[in-house]
């Protein structure tokens, strides 16, 4: 969890301007939509869903004899008319066009799409794609067998076909693959709108060829297009909506939420109604340094600048996976339990900021948080610290070292731990004093081990820009040699992986140097095996094997292997 360059804070709170803005709050009456309502299907999605249900009703009508006969008559009439267009030179061409719906074409499209999703680490989209594909394929199998419809009868079939005809499997598979590609590869907006137009051509050509060759009935094709378009469209809009899971063509960083007009308007409404703040502008801020939230620079109508952190359910899930990974790799590491809701996650950060502020610690003054979408998206608001720099980029003077170590001592005395001390979370102000940000991981009454790790982490952060000897000498003003030794005995790559990466880049083995300076102290074991860890590891391994075998089996059933 890292935000960036937000604000400093004082015990008394934020700028006077913020207080002046309050007083225009408004309670949202029961039944009134939240500032950012869920509704992700959009009009076209709903229209396709209605069309698909209509198509399903039409298909079900085929199970009743009078309507089946009627629909077959209608199909026959259309196919007879189409057959009048047959010409010697055109038929081979149409047989070639059938390849658009061949298993090899579909395989190529699928595997290309999945490869891109893996390369760009769009795991959510990949997950939705696989699950919706399995449902789609099984549904298609079930419908084909349920209707067990013969191929056209009254017109000579002059092309290749496979199995029962309703719904048309090749058309459905092609439509599904192309629509899935649009929602996983083409970013929302112009690119996607163009892609939507572009896929009409191959689907239309395949449909025309299959009608010309009389391998499908027209109603088979209508049902296939309905299914092939609706299932991926609804799945992606429902479970990977663009506003929460935007497509970003880069690797390595979690995608941030899109700050589009709809979300800006929601932030405007939420800040006004819930905190009484009048928004002038809001924009993403220092995104490249943020992993666990979307940081924002908020400007109020009187030029007051605030810092905002947008948290969504996706951030909570990322935190859950991170903690599961840590538990499997390192063991319990003390209370690293995931948050069950995004609301609790935001409440924790807001509360910790308030506790730390009340303890006199230099944190960004909290102004509370607002709800954009209940249980799904919240905006945390704090002061913004102007002109502060991350300690990894700032000049570290003796004043800075002294103040930073004093802050750790104050945390110890107040019974608090920050638990995520790293250069990005320790800001240096122009006067050389520090400010702590990103208190999300903070803990009240932490274990002595957590407090010891905080001390060692702060000393490493400071030494990365200076040297171990200077930092050690300053530390002796606030901590005993034994306390310092305990800190470095408790610290390992498991406890602070990001700091260890920085030390490797730096080239100096600061950890070893600090251990030399401090008196001997027995190493504090981090790896702890517990019944929970063993159980979790077993569940993950067995679950992984089951998922892989099901995946392979389903891909095989769908003809993709």
């Amino acid at each position: 969890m890292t935000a960036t360059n937000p604000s400093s804070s004082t015990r008394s709170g934020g700028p006077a301007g913020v207080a002046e803005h309050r007083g225009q709050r408004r309670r949202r009456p029961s039944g009134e939509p939240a500032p950012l309502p869920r509704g992700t299907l959009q009009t076209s999605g709903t229209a396709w869903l209605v069309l698909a249900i209509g198509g399903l009703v039409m298909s079900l009508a085929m199970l009743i004899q009078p309507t089946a006969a009627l629909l077959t008559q209608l199909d026959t009439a259309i196919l007879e008319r189409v057959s009048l267009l047959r010409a010697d030179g055109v038929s081979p061409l149409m047989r070639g066009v059938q390849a658009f719906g061949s298993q090899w074409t579909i395989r190529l499209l699928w595997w290309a799409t999945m490869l891109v999703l893996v390369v760009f680490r769009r795991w959510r989209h990949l997950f939705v794609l696989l699950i919706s594909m399995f449902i789609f394929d099984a549904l298609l199998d079930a419908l084909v067998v349920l209707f067990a419809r013969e191929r056209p009868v009254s017109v000579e079939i002059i092309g290749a076909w496979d199995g029962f005809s309703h719904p048309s499997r090749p058309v459905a598979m092609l439509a599904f693959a192309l629509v899935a590609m649009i929602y996983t590869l083409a970013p929302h907006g112009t690119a996607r709108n163009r892609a939507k137009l572009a896929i009409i051509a191959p689907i239309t050509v395949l449909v025309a060829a299959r009608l010309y060759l009389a391998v499908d009935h027209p109603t088979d094709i209508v049902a296939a297009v309905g299914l092939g378009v609706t299932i991926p469209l609804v799945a992606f809009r429902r479970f990977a909506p663009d506003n929460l899971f935007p497509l970003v063509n880069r690797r390595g960083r979690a995608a941030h939420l899109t700050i589009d007009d709809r979300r800006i308007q929601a932030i405007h409404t939420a800040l006004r109604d819930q905190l009484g703040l009048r928004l002038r502008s809001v924009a993403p801020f220092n995104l490249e340094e943020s992993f666990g939230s979307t940081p924002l620079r908020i400007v109020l109508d009187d030029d007051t600048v605030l810092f905002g952190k947008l948290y969504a359910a996706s951030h909570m899930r990322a935190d859950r996976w991170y903690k599961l990974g840590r538990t499997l790799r390192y063991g319990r590491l003390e209370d690293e339990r995931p948050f069950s809701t995004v609301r609790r996650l935001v409440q924790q950060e807001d509360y910790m900021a308030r506790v730390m502020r009340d303890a006199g610690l230099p944190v960004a003054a909290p102004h509370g948080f607002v709800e954009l979408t209940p249980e799904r998206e919240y905006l945390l608001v704090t002061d913004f610290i102007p002109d502060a720099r991350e300690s990894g980029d700032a000049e570290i003077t003796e004043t800075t070292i002294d103040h930073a170590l004093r802050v750790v001592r104050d945390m110890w005395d107040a019974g608090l731990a920050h638990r995520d001390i790293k250069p990005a979370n320790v800001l240096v102000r122009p006067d050389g004093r520090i400010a702590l940000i990103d208190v999300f991981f903070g803990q009240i009454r932490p274990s002595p081990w957590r407090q010891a790790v905080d001390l060692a982490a702060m000393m490493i952060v400071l030494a990365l820009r200076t040297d171990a000897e200077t930092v050690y000498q300053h530390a002796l003003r606030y901590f005993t040699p034994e306390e310092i030794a305990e800190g470095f005995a408790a610290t390992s790559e498991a406890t602070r992986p990001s700091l260890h990466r920085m030390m490797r880049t730096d080239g100096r083995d600061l950890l070893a140097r600090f251990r030399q300076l401090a008196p001997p102290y027995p190493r504090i074991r981090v790896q702890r095996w517990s019944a929970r860890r063993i159980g979790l590891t077993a569940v993950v391994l067995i679950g992984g094997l089951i998922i892989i075998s099901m995946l392979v089996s389903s891909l095989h059933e769908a003809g993709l292997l």
Partner: protein
Amino acid sequence: MRRATLAAFVAAALLLTGCSAAEFASGRLPTCGEAGARTTFLMAQAAPDATLVPCLAPGAKPASWTLEDMKIDSAGARLAFVADMISDQPQRVEVLFSGACDVSGAVSVPSDEQGTERFEHVDSVEGGYVGQRSYVFDGGCVMYRFTAPGEGWSGFVHDASTVLTFMPRAEVVRLRDLALAPR
């Protein structure tokens, strides 16, 4: 609500993907008569000139037989049954239906199916039976491919002779028309 929907989405995927195409298809076996009319008609479309269409005698399929695969396309039809699938030596018969088949090397024997010529080709009788039986008739051919290891192979082949039979094409078309006719 959203989590419940997602869970339902995943559960549906798990349940549905647990069913293979063959499992779905087992509900549409080409049984002779009205019950299997839709499938036998599609098989008839797979060999448009064949005067006979293979089918399963109603109620004759032993409980130990499982449909392993069913594929019907414009080139013909293939059904595969396995008996005692969970045993060490499952016995298989493949039924291949097409417009023509190669019977060179096979021996002509008196046919037990009206309107057909029967050919037998034995590959092996050591430790079981491996061979092909072909029925040739106007416009089509049906081949049974046996792979029946173990001592009980003769019973399996006998069962196959009882289960697998034919319907005249005209009857297949009549039943299909009957199925579509308004009632």
